[in-house]
């Protein structure tokens, strides 16, 4: 278990960024991918960052971020092995703001079709068909079946907000707290071969088109998650992270 708080971590806004002090963001360190970029991006928008693999700190974090790249199965194994699956569930149940990034979105769902090569210690996983996720958002993670388009989906693509429901008052839909001030049609950076398919379309806060129309952001209560990499998406991505860091 380790917790890292950067030297001089405080609510300072970096040079050039006139943001007021923001509450700390806790990033889960479970060895799945380069979280330094996510940490750097939050610091850049003025949010102090804590990086930890301690389940206690994760469960009690004021704002929690679950990053991740790599395979679903390996990530779930690591989370479970470190007791972080329960810690993340506890945090989500607390109602405090949560953000999943890339694999961190997919892990929220009930299960994934990503079996690929067998996961160590589970030789039947390649034929089992599905691997269970955290189960916080009902749905399935499916492979991007978009031939002849290339997979993985890599590069800059646009996102769109869902059409307003007939019952919405006033016409224009609110883009959701993560996307405040961010126009739809903005480009963000994607790197993925699987996409989240939640059971309830009402949780989808943004779509992307790549052969198929898929959910690239979800929001339900305190749970937020994006398929793209906001820490690699220039000013648009930073705006999204800034919005998250001021959710309360």
């Amino acid at each position: 278990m380790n917790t890292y708080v950067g030297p001089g971590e405080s609510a300072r806004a970096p040079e050039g960024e006139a943001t007021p002090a923001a509450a700390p963001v806790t990033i889960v360190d479970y060895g799945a991918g380069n979280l330094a970029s996510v940490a750097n991006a939050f610091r850049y928008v003025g949010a102090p960052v804590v990086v930890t693999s301690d389940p206690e700190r994760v469960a009690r974090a004021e704002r929690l971020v679950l990053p991740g790249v790599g395979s679903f199965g390996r990530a779930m194994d690591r989370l479970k092995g470190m007791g972080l699956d329960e810690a993340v569930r506890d945090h989500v149940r607390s109602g405090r703001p949560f953000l999943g990034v890339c694999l961190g979105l997919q892990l929220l769902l009930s299960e994934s079709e990503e079996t690929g090569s067998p996961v160590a210690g589970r030789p039947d996983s390649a034929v089992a068909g599905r691997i269970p996720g955290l189960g916080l958002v009902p749905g399935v993670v499916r492979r991007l079946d978009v031939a002849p388009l290339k997979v993985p989906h890599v590069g800059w693509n646009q996102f769109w907000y869902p059409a307003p429901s007939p019952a919405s008052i006033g016409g224009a839909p609110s883009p959701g707290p993560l996307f405040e001030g961010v126009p739809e049609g903005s480009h963000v950076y994607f790197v993925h071969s699987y996409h989240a398919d939640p059971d309830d379309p009402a949780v989808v806060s943004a779509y992307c088109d790549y052969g198929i129309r898929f959910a690239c952001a979800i929001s339900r209560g305190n749970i937020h998650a994006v398929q793209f990499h906001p820490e690699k998406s220039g000013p648009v991505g930073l705006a999204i992270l800034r919005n998250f860091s001021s959710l309360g």
Partner: protein
Amino acid sequence: MALAIRIIPCLDVKDGRVVKGTHFVSLRDAGDPVELAAAYSDAGADEIVFLDITASAERRATVLDVVRRTAERVFVPLTVGGGLRTVDDVRSALRAGADKVSVNSAAVRRPELVREAADAFGSQCVVVAVDARRVEQRVAPRAGARVGARWEVVIDGGRTPTGLDVLDWIERVQTLGAGEILLTSMNTDGTQAGYDNELNAAVAGVLGIPLIASGGAGSLADLYDAVTVGHADALLVASMFHYGTHTVREAKEYLAARGLPVRL
């Protein structure tokens, strides 16, 4: 919806300093790779590539420091290449903050490096850079050989011919797990007279992964042709931006005005 065509400035870095001329005269220090990368990113560059051309044995620590500081300030994908020879070199670069690494000569000398890096870090992190030089046909091709224009893979900055056919080599590294190909024509590189789109199109024809075209961009029309004729997914640009012939913004607006998907 189509993926945006990516415009990627490439900075040659030697001993921690940028060595080509730069258009950003307003920068406090136009030779500082971090400032330059930030300026390009702010100007709309979709990614940044650092090519480390340091010759000394001390290069590793210097370029890692540059990467680290860049990753604190630049929030678009960063690729680092130049002299990366082992999986440990790749790991160090990624840990320092690079999103991708580019391997060239080392991959030709030991192709398994591509597979090892892709297995350890994911194909999306592994760009295989290929330098290609046109082959003059003096002898009739043997039966079964490719017909038409041919290119040979060269390494060590163009100094060492390998005898490898570029299409054969690219098909091989794709199988080994490369995530993208960064293809440079040694015939057009630095000329600002246009890319070798016959090469680009030939390579694009065998690729199921993205093609980043490099070498020769001098006019905005060159960029357009590399996409429409060369079938490139992304464009590496060095001289054209560094000498101020055109800006990132001009390049993107030109492509967008002609109907190509571009991030503005």
